[in-house]
């Protein structure tokens, strides 16, 4: 009997386990998922928590995994690729024939001097964690005005549009509370614009402008001076705040670094088309845990899982892997007031305007604010729990399509 061990039962780990369990013979394959906590968190839902949304955030992992998948709850402490074994913090050792690392990435406020301390969760907040999002909700409720600074420490972060979305939603929140004129909103980024890719950056930059949100670019934070409520950059610029909402440094799991499997941020270097570890062929890293040059997002975890599964059958048969991941990512961007926009891109094509997913028929619009896009984002929660993580079919192909897209300078016929 062969054994496949999957570290992490989040988006990628769950999709991969379910898809493989359907097609690998039960008598021949033992599939084990290891996660440190029993509940699966729907992370896209965290964005809405500070503004009062809280539905369907957590579900037991056991219920999301098909019968015939073994679930172990425990913290992974180390992987030994030579002995092909995984060591848990409680001392247990699990051996594998094939290993999938899907332990994602997490927020590390401890990596920025001054961030963790007496002011953490008082005047300094995050919304990338369950507890953080709820603490921020209380802080926003109690905020009486002043300067709100939304801040990103360093790229890459998971869901790189989430801090922009938070900014748009916060602006709308204060407007609805009729206190917008008492709140100054500043968006502080290490990038040289609102977003990474030029065309999307232009569109999103315009939306920030319209909403009178100041953008501070090229700001690489060195430390937080929590007593003076000030962000200090490496080039000695200072930005004061009354309420700071930061996205701390995102890093892969510590065991990846400790086992010598990671880069400087504990991400596993992989082949960008097959997700196979560059150092150990029997190890694959799927989702946020790898170093792919595309967004760290649930959509990427999902699209790349489909490619991985097809390749895995070939790999275990000793065949060449013929399926190639193109870096496809697809993200809804909430812009406030019940609207949103959508971006769709891959390694080679930056987010472009147009219609999605059925070419000119849409019904969704790329890089353009509509109500339909907002409903798409909300519908995504149902799709996530009922189709995506279950490994069922989704109407979006894993490869990006140019259908419906156009470059902004190209003529579009209606």
């Amino acid at each position: 009997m062969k054994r496949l061990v999957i570290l992490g039962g989040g988006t990628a780990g769950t999709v991969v386990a379910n898809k493989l369990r359907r097609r690998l013979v039960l008598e021949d394959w033992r599939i084990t998922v290891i996660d440190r906590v029993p509940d699966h968190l729907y992370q896209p839902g965290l964005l809405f928590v500070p503004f009062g949304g809280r539905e369907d955030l957590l579900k037991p992992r056991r219920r999301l995994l098909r019968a015939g998948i073994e679930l172990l709850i425990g913290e992974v402490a180390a992987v030994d690729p030579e002995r092909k074994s995984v060591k848990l913090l409680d001392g247990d050792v699990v051996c594998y024939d094939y290993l999938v690392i899907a332990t994602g990435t997490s927020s590390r406020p401890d990596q920025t001097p001054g961030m963790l301390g007496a002011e953490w969760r008082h005047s300094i907040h995050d919304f990338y964690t369950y507890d953080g999002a709820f603490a921020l909700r209380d802080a926003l409720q109690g905020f009486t005005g002043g300067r709100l600074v939304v801040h990103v420490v360093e790229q890459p972060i998971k869901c790189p549009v989430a801090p922009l979305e938070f900014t748009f939603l916060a602006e709308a929140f204060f407007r609805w509370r009729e206190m917008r004129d008492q709140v100054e909103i500043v968006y502080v980024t290490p990038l040289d614009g609102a977003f990474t890719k030029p065309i999307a950056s232009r569109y999103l930059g315009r939306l920030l402008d319209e909403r009178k949100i100041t953008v501070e670019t090229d700001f690489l934070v060195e430390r937080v001076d929590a007593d003076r409520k000030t962000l200090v950059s490496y080039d000695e610029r200072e930005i004061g705040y009354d309420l700071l909402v930061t996205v701390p440094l995102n890093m892969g799991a510590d065991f990846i670094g400790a086992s010598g499997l990671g880069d400087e941020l504990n991400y596993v270097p992989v082949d960008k088309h097959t997700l196979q570890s560059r150092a150990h062929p029997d190890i694959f890293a799927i989702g946020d845990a790898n170093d792919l040059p595309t967004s760290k997002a649930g959509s990427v975890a999902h699209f790349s899982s489909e490619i991985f599964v097809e390749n895995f059958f070939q790999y275990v048969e000793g065949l060449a892997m013929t399926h190639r991941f193109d870096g496809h990512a697809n993200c809804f961007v909430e812009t406030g007031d019940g609207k949103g926009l959508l971006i769709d891109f891959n390694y080679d094509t930056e987010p472009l305007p147009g219609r999605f997913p059925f070419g000119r028929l849409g019904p969704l619009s790329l890089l353009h604010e509509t109500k339909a896009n907002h409903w798409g984002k909300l519908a995504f929660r149902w799709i996530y729990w009922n189709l995506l993580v279950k490994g069922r079919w989704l109407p979006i192909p894993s490869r990006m399509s140019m259908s419906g897209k156009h470059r902004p300078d190209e003529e579009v016929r209606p």
Partner: protein
Amino acid sequence: MTTIHREIHTDAEGFLTEYDEWTDDLAVQLAAGIGIELSDEHWKAIRFLREDYPTHGETATLRRVSTLAGIPVKQLFALFPGKPAKKMAYVAGLPKPRGCV
């Protein structure tokens, strides 16, 4: 006299597009063009970037340089003031660092 522009291929922002067209002399000229005189410290960072690129496949980030080459980020800001990641890549003849989507 030859100008550097006749020998090299660059993108619209002046970043070299051919890894092998880079030389030490060129680095000195590129650096001078943006007001930097290269010291040993500069060279340590540039050599690391050059060596890292072929295996890593991407221009190293400031964090990567600081972790793997042991040059603190603060010092990189002092060596290449303003936009150190971009300036280092420019002088080292590598693509502009990808902003990470």
